[in-house]
């Protein structure tokens, strides 16, 4: 509408319709082909081992090559539980991994919060020391840890497994949690203190819920690392009833000088069962992360 009796220039009403929306630029056929071929190659690279796994798990006469099972059977799965005591091995792995995850999450949330918030005199030194520990390769520590574990009586025990598995993940995850805590504004805790909350309760009620994505990542990584850890288990465990799955794999692959044949079918069956808890944890941790990200980080 034109403005009546207004000063300055008249602004005329719009008489033309807005132009039709332009279509997005379509990728040419060559681009499409290139992109999809690369995708295919990468996917194949990652999926082929799983293909082997599935084909070998159901094949009593599996080999190291991918082959369609001549007589598909579930006997491998039965055998791992009846002959190889896999139930026990799996239970050990689950117990150790879950306990490690709980211990690690507890430790890194407190450590990360302290490094982020507290006013320590040599905080910078401590932070960099923690980071430095991360650069140490595990294999270099095997011998000293063997000696230490023996002296402390931690060999052949759940406690030893859990403590050492946890220790391996601490440096990186403390660093990770510190980063997450740094991203939570201090004002939120200060507001809680002024509202009357003590420091510790404010941490639990206000800060930790907002650090959920970080805690989810830490929990997931701690579980996975403990789940897959083999080097430390090799030096710590030689009793059958305390074996974890990675150790079982390791032993199954040894042929003891050619006397026993490597039973690929059995190994593949173990691996398939081994994958299942990982998927559970992955989806659980992912949900924790997403829920945390959705509810908290906006509006800060």
């Amino acid at each position, binding site marked *: 509408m034109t403005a009546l009796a207004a000063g300055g220039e008249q602004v005329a009403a719009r008489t033309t319709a807005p132009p039709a929306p332009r279509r997005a630029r379509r990728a040419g056929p060559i681009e499409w082909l290139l992109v999809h071929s690369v995708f295919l190659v990468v996917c194949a690279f990652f999926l082929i081992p799983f293909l082997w796994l599935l084909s070998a798990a159901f094949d009593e006469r599996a080999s190291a090559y991918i082959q369609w099972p001549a007589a598909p059977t579930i006997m491998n799965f039965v055998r791992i539980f009846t002959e190889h005591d896999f139930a026990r091995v799996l239970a050990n792995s689950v117990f150790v991994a879950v306990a490690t995850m709980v211990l690690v999450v507890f430790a890194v949330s407190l450590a990360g919060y302290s490094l982020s918030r507290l006013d320590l005199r040599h905080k910078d030194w401590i932070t960099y020391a923690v980071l430095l520990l991360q650069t140490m390769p595990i294999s270099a520590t095997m011998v000293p840890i063997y000696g230490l574990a023996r002296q402390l009586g931690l060999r052949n025990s759940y406690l030893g497994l859990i403590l050492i598995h946890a220790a391996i993940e601490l440096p990186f995850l403390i660093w990770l949690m510190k980063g997450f805590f740094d991203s939570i504004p201090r004002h939120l805790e*200060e*507001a*809680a203190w002024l509202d009357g909350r*003590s420091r510790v309760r404010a941490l639990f009620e*206000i800060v930790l819920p907002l650090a959920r994505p970080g805690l989810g990542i830490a929990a997931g990584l701690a579980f996975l690392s403990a789940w897959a850890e083999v080097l430390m288990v090799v030096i710590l465990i030689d009793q059958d009833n305390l074996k974890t799955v990675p150790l079982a794999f390791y032993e199954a692959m040894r042929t003891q000088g050619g006397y026993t044949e490597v039973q690929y079918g059995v190994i593949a069956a173990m691996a398939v069962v081994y994958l299942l808890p990982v998927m559970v944890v992955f989806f659980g941790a992912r949900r924790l992360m997403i829920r945390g990200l959705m509810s908290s980080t906006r509006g800060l």
Partner: protein
Amino acid sequence: MADVEYVDVWKQFASQASAAVQGLSLTIPDRELLVLLGPSGCGKTTALRMLAGLEEPDRGDIRIGGKSVVGLEPKDRDVALVFQSYALYPHLSAQDNIGYPLKVRHLSRAEQREKVSRVADMLGIGHLLPRRPAQLSGGEQQRVALARAIVREPRVFLMDEPLSNLDAKLRVHTRTELKTLQRELGTTMVFVTHDQAEAMSLANRIAVLNAGELQQIGTPDEVYDRPANVFVAEFIGSPPMNLLPASRHDDSLVVAGGWRIPAPALASAPNGEVTVGLRPEGISIEADGQTAEVVAVEPFGSEVIVDVLVGSQSLKIRAAPDVRPNPGSTVGIRADPAAVRLFDASTGLATH
């Protein structure tokens, strides 16, 4: 409700070269709205945080209601602080945010609900209670933060630039509301800002700080009409006070460019160099005054600010909206003797 006292408070941060707060002493009587005003880094927020208990003074005492609070946890001081960023708990609804301090005090759910809805109605946000902070606009978030402070009925309200994140129109509107609210609630309030217009409009008294030191404390009229030094003179008022180097010869002041202004009669300072302060409204454009060249004309609707040059000295003059000299032309200017302020040329302190 309580009065607040700062007694010779000092605070230095290890990471900074000079002290953030230097020897701050001031008394805020009960029910007063005091504004801590100053540029960024002047120490006003630090002073406020020390009152809240989020920082501790290195030296000196802070008292609320006559009793020292130094060493007391923030939660035991019974003060409420509204942060510049509002600091609303993002994972709680507005209702839970406002009710949080009540929950901490173990009030029953019914009592919490009742108090929250009463305060929400007072601020006109009752319909926003179920929403999360991320679903609220800036102005709405600010009101929720305010409600959270009010619902606690604290002894002292502390506000750390709560309006600076609002757009200009909302800021002016909320300013007035805050002033009325504070008067109705009758609670002592300490308000931090860098905006001198905000300070002038809100305060019962203004405390001007610069580089950690208190420059002047007084009512808005006092700091405007009688600034204690050149810093306050320049900081308060928009456009700022014109400060002109001049030399005094008995009963007249000679400013650069040969402009003679009659010196105030009672001034006791000896002859010599002085700094003359004249607010833009203390100079008028008159045909038979000192010649000055017009540099720019800024129309503001209700008034016009004319930038002129006297010799090498530039001045701003406040004039009626129909005064429109052409840039480049010459006009006559005259100073109102009653509006002349004198400052020591070396220390900057007011001498008249």
